């Protein structure tokens, strides 16, 4: 912290304004604020400091804000739009007299005042030429700016084409006004100032509309950035203080009241509440949070108040990571665009060549006045070509599609991932943690004759309360959920590999596998068959013996998430083969597979072989998506054509994943596939439209219809068409904003 060093009388102080290191003695000026002294390198810095005193003296944000540049970018865009609109109105206003006076022979009064070939007309045309200069110089400035730089790089773009087109029309008109005698016939000495002004007006209008529409494509990310909380109420030195969210530090205790936004990510330490996480996870049902649970910054607290310890702040929060991921993805290229880029590279020069070629052909073979036709064709061809429509087609749709995904809690990493996701043929779901909750729950309680279920469960849970086995907590939680009161267990003893024993409520209780009971010569009786049935369903049964007598079975299993079955059915409706991958034995796996309705079960797969199983499917010639948890399944996710990681709370930047599903639900997989399909369909429409537009428009502009139909396009119509084409592309991309999932729920 530069300001702290300044107070400790260091050899060098740091100018708080320009950040230059200066010796306190050689400083130009100094200021005393409270206990701190500030030194300045120049009068300017000191002056600026005086003006911004409050800001400079405050400690400043401790962490970086999520996206400080966005507002600037928005302002830039708004300003650019305003300027374009003004430029349009200017060009449009000038266009009115220019058009009228360019064709006086069509206007009753003017016809008599300015007869063709008269000196008055030439003077008026000369004035028109002067009037069009500001239109080109200001309204059309963006076409000319950078043209030299571009030509120096031997590159050209749409602006180059327009600039050449409108200059050609202007220059021809200038020659016609100044040297009418060099034209072989009087009717050739025509002016085309109307082309210059109207084309400029239309193309500038197109640019403005396009900019506006493009701004809307990134609405999703603006919404995400807007989610950020502004302030946080933290407890420091035992006092509650409201501070800007940028100043929250890791390990700060943050207080959240009902209806307030959670400022940063953290772990709940006190209290409990329901939290609406829909803005991050896309999950509409509020989530119940208790002590020890993770809370996500920028989600909305609903009912309770609680305290939490901040674990991630600034650019490390889930929201900041999401924003960064989405921005990166929106900037990435889909493979389809590499083709477009190749086309773009040849496009503009090709159009120039075509324009020259058609002008020559018209001049040599065309009807009289050939020179005028040649000029019109040349200008029209340059103007109608719209490389922008081709160039805009993919990125705008991607921006909207990826943003749409983020709105639903689906983070698509890149255009590549999006394009591959729409081609998926097989989706492999890891069983544990993906189809199932990944945490065992109590599923069955069976009591032998002479015992009741309540007793069986109560005694089992009382014993298991002392155990650290993963199934133990499932049994304890199951018992508590049924409202059973557990007594103390005495003489607890774990028998490794078999189970546990203890004395509860005066009974000698054994809980474990069959061997635990048979070793103590306890007959299993009917229970053995029942246990096998339970095991066949993929659950883990445990025997309970009370005072040397088999009393019942307690079973626990990793249960299926409530929406897994529906999501798998939805994927199948989308025509995707669904496979389940698990380490379970085949019988168990088949049982679960049937329950959830997958097409294929890949059982008995060791964790290290998961990637291999994915590869085997790929060798069948399928495009394979793998859904897993991102940590244990990382190699399989990386092997798959598209790796989809099921989110784990606030850690959203999962490296191995192409797509991250923030909510744990499999529904996200369905949504991801649907979004990628919808987006790529939109991209294809755009590319097709832009391609068709150019491949029809350019030949028509070159006059291909003239020999048969006598049709020739005017440069002004060409300008309207070209402006409309790029606006159409962006508008079509914006249609995606209203996209709704069909199969996902």
């Amino acid at each position, binding site marked *: 912290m530069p300001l702290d060093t300044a107070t400790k009388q260091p050899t060098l102080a740091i100018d708080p304004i320009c950040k230059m290191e200066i010796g306190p003695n050689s400083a130009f000026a100094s200021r005393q604020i409270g206990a701190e002294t500030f030194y300045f390198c120049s009068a300017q810095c000191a002056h600026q400091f005086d003006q911004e005193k409050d800001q400079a003296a405050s400690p400043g944000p401790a962490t970086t804000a999520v996206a400080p540049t966005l507002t*600037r970018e928005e302002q830039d865009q708004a300003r650019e739009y305003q300027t374009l609109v003004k430029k349009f109105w200017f060009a449009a206003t000038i266009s009115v007299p220019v058009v009228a006076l360019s064709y006086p022979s069509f206007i009753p009064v003017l016809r008599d005042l300015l007869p063709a070939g008269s000196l008055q007309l030439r003077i008026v045309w000369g004035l028109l030429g002067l009037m069009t200069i500001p239109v080109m110089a200001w309204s059309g400035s963006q076409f000319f700016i950078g043209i030299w730089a571009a030509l120096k790089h*031997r*590159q050209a773009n749409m602006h180059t084409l327009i600039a050449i087109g409108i200059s050609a029309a202007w220059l021809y008109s200038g020659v016609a006004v100044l040297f009418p005698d060099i034209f072989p016939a009087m009717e050739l000495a025509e002016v085309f100032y109307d082309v210059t002004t109207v084309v400029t007006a239309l193309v500038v209008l197109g640019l403005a509309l396009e900019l506006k529409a493009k701004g809307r494509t990134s609405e999703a990310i603006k919404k995400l950035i807007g989610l950020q909380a502004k302030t946080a109420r933290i407890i420091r030195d035992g006092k509650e203080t409201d501070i800007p969210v940028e100043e929250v530090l890791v390990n700060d205790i943050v207080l959240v009241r009902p209806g307030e936004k959670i400022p940063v990510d953290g772990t709940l330490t006190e209290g409990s509440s329901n939290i609406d996480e829909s803005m991050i996870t896309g999950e509409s049902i509020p989530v119940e949070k208790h002590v020890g649970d993770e809370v996500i910054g920028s989600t909305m607290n609903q009912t309770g108040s609680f305290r939490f310890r901040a674990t991630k702040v600034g650019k490390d929060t889930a929201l900041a990571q999401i924003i960064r991921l989405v921005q990166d993805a929106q900037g*990435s290229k889909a493979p389809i*665009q590499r083709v477009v880029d190749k086309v773009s*590279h040849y496009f503009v020069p090709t159009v120039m*060549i075509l324009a020259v070629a058609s002008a020559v052909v018209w001049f*040599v073979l065309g009807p009289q006045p050939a020179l005028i036709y040649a000029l019109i064709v040349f200008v029209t061809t340059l103007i109608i070509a719209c*490389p922008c429509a081709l160039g805009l087609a993919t990125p705008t749709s991607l921006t909207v599609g990826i943003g749409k995904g983020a709105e639903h809690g689906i983070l698509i990493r*890149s255009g590549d991932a999006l394009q591959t996701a729409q081609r998926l043929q097989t989706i492999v779901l890891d069983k544990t943690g993906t189809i199932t909750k990944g945490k065992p729950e109590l599923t069955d309680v069976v009591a032998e004759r002479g015992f009741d279920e309540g007793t069986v469960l109560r005694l089992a849970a009382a014993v298991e309360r002392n155990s650290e086995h993963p199934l133990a907590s499932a049994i304890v939680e199951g018992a508590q959920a049924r409202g059973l009161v557990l007594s103390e267990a005495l003489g607890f003893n774990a028998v490794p590999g078999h189970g546990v024993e203890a004395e509860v409520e005066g009974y000698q209780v054994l809980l474990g596998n069959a061997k635990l009971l048979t070793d103590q010569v306890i007959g299993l009786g009917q229970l053995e068959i029942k246990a096998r049935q339970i095991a066949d369903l993929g659950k883990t049964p445990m025997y309970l013996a009370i005072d040397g007598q088999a009393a019942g079975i307690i079973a626990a299993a990793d249960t299926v998430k409530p929406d897994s079955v529906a999501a798998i059915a939805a994927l199948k409706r989308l025509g995707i083969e669904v496979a389940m991958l698990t380490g379970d034995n085949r019988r168990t796996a088949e049982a679960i597979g049937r329950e959830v309705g997958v097409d294929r079960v890949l059982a008995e797969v060791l964790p290290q072989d998961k990637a291999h199983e994915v590869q085997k499917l790929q060798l069948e010639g399928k495009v394979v998506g793998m859904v897993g948890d991102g940590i244990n399944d990382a190699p399989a996710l990386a092997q798959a054509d598209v790796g989809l990681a099921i989110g784990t709370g606030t850690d959203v930047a999962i490296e191995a994943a192409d797509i991250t599903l923030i909510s744990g639900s499999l529904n996200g997989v369905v949504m991801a596939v649907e979004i990628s399909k919808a987006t790529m369909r939109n991209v294809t429409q755009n590319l097709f439209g832009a391609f068709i537009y150019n491949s029809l428009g350019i030949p028509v502009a070159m006059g291909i219809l003239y020999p048969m139909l006598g049709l020739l396009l005017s440069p002004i119509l060409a300008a309207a068409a070209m402006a409309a084409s790029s606006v159409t592309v962006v508008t079509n991309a914006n249609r995606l904003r209203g996209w709704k999932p069909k199969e996902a729920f």
Partner: protein
Amino acid sequence: MTPVDFVVITAGLLLIVGIAWFFWGPRQGGTRAALTSGGYQEAMILVKGGYTPDLIVVQHGKPVRLNFRREETASCSEMVVFGDFGKSAKLPEGEIVPVEFVPDKPGEYTFACQMGMLHGKLIVE
């Protein structure tokens, strides 16, 4: 065919050849990125109607930092994309935006604006 026609045809053909050569002809030159004390190979690139320089030579295996500075408002160039490296950056007007990556394999890589109108080439040795 009149002599005028002949002149026009010849001029047109020459112009066409000229355009083709100008835009697609062989190029030379290129700027070698300077190695800084931080171990980065750095180069400054001006974005105005194109990338200056538009041909940058770097060595493989060492981190590269290209500092872009955009000096125009045309929305065409508001983003620079390195498709091969999965990198992209928004270029607010007048700000220096660094793009960093490590080129692992020698070869020729292109970078372009989002619409593919402006092109630059990165040669990795």
